[in-house]
């Protein structure tokens, strides 16, 4: 959907790296009927502007919880967590991020265009601005012509694209994505991964991306955070040395496989722990 030259035009931010999300000794304990559960333990992590950071690990490792804590949807019980230098709650009020959930979560009573317009209405954008932004982001995710359709008339992949458009519609520098393609089949997923990379290159957003697929994590990110459960913690942070420009078949190169191998090792080490 984007030409190659546009992707080439993208360059890493050359100014001094600027921390967008910063966690120091972050703790999060859930009180359940079976007693407290340590969902996050001693999380230390810095995500810089323009990075694409994947969180990978088995279920229960706290990757989703961490993302929700960044979004202010969960309250940490210890340590510090800042988003753009603010607390997550302040960042939420400042509408600092767009969030894409596991399911599209579109409102079935709104057409696709009106779903994308929802955050703009809430945030008080002008009518004309709403119109042009909806048009722009629907173009970005390849959904032109579906404005008047209702979510339940579209395929799962298209619904998820609409929900991404909805998260992009307003000017948030950060995009938080919680297994957005988890429920889709492999073929659709590949396609969306490619589109997401192009979109990231074009918008220069900072992206936090939760997944349980190793190839997806390696293919997309600049940094892979490997997590492990009971208690949820970070076991490894792997910088991705692959070039910015990534055609789908980069997944067959030795370099790709090497990084994937390291991620797998990290996941295994986490498991050997318990």
């Amino acid at each position: 959907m984007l030409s190659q030259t546009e992707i080439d035009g993208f360059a890493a931010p050359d100014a001094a790296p600027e921390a967008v999300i910063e966690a120091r000794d972050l703790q999060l304990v859930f009180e359940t009927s079976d007693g407290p559960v340590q969902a996050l333990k001693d999380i230390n992590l810095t995500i810089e502007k323009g990075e694409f950071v994947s969180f990978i690990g088995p279920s229960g490792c706290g990757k989703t919880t961490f993302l929700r804590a960044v979004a202010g949807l969960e309250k940490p019980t210890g340590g510090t967590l800042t988003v753009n230098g603010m607390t997550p709650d302040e960042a939420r009020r400042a509408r600092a991020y767009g969030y894409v959930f596991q399911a599209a979560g579109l409102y079935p009573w709104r057409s696709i265009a009106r779903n994308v317009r929802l955050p703009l209405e809430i945030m008080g954008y002008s009518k004309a601005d709403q119109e042009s932004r909806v048009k722009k982001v629907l173009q970005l995710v390849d959904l032109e012509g579906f404005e008047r359709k209702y979510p339940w008339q579209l395929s799962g992949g298209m619904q998820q694209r609409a929900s991404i458009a909805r998260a992009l519609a307003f000017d948030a520098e950060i995009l938080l994505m919680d297994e957005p393609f988890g429920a889709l089949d492999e073929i659709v997923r590949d396609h969306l991964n490619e589109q997401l990379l192009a979109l990231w290159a074009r918008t220069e957003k900072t992206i936090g991306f939760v997944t349980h697929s190793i190839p997806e994590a390696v293919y997309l990110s600049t940094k892979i955070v490997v997590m492990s459960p009971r208690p949820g913690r970070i076991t490894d942070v792997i910088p991705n040395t692959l070039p910015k420009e990534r055609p789908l078949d980069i997944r067959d190169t030795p370099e790709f496989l090497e990084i994937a191998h390291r991620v797998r090792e990290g996941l295994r080490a986490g498991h050997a722990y318990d």
Partner: protein
Amino acid sequence: MILAFGAILFWVLAWWANIRLANSTLADTRFGMAAVPILFGVTLLVLWEGLVRGLSVPGVILPPPSMIAARFAASTSILWADFRQTFIKGALSGYVIGVGAAFAMAIAVDRYEFLRRGLLPVGSFIAALPVIGTAPILVMWFGFDWQSKAAVVVVMVFFPVLVNTVQGLTSAERIQRDLMTTYAAGYWQTLWKLRLPSALPFIFNGLKIATTLALIGAIVAEFFGSPIVGMGFRISTSVGQLALDMVWAEIAVAALAGSAFYGLVALAERLLTFWHPSQRRQKT
């Protein structure tokens, strides 16, 4: 006797026709869907007419449909007056007030988790009670005219609508609610853009229950005292005079009014909750 046999013959023939229709390719067409039940309804009427006339059943036990139709045609002005008194003044105004009050209450209660948890079981409990029994009390309080009938209707429709609305307001999915949180949306924004729309199917469920209850409430309340007009009044006095044709004519009015009212609410539901799985015509 010949009439009775004729009616039975008609019934056999119509039933045979219906079986043919239902098992033919016509069954899934609009024509078939309408023709079969209509033929069945007509058969019942013919059977009723033929048997009552053929066996000369006295009119004080069961008048034939033709006699009821004649009575209906001859007394349209009385029936209209009764309809106005009972349906428009009693049932409809009570319905509007009751639904409005339940709605306001639901939105007020909804802000307090504690109250909601208490009100939901109590409300469902009261909704299952024979609330119609409050009719004599309300007739005493509000007098014989339509105001007391409206009051009965208010009490009857209040709880089903309240319970359904309160339940509906919590029906939005977690992701949909979290989404609103990530937008830092205010209470009213969330209510208006998410929780009310997602409550609509529940609200309509309550409204549909309430339409049936409203007419029942208004009619039965008249059994406990009314001015000399009204459907319930006419039914009870005509029963006393053994003028059963008049009773049946009133029942026909009640049936028409009841299904028309229900149909209107169902139509509004179709328009406003077209997106709900139960309302989608087909997958496109």
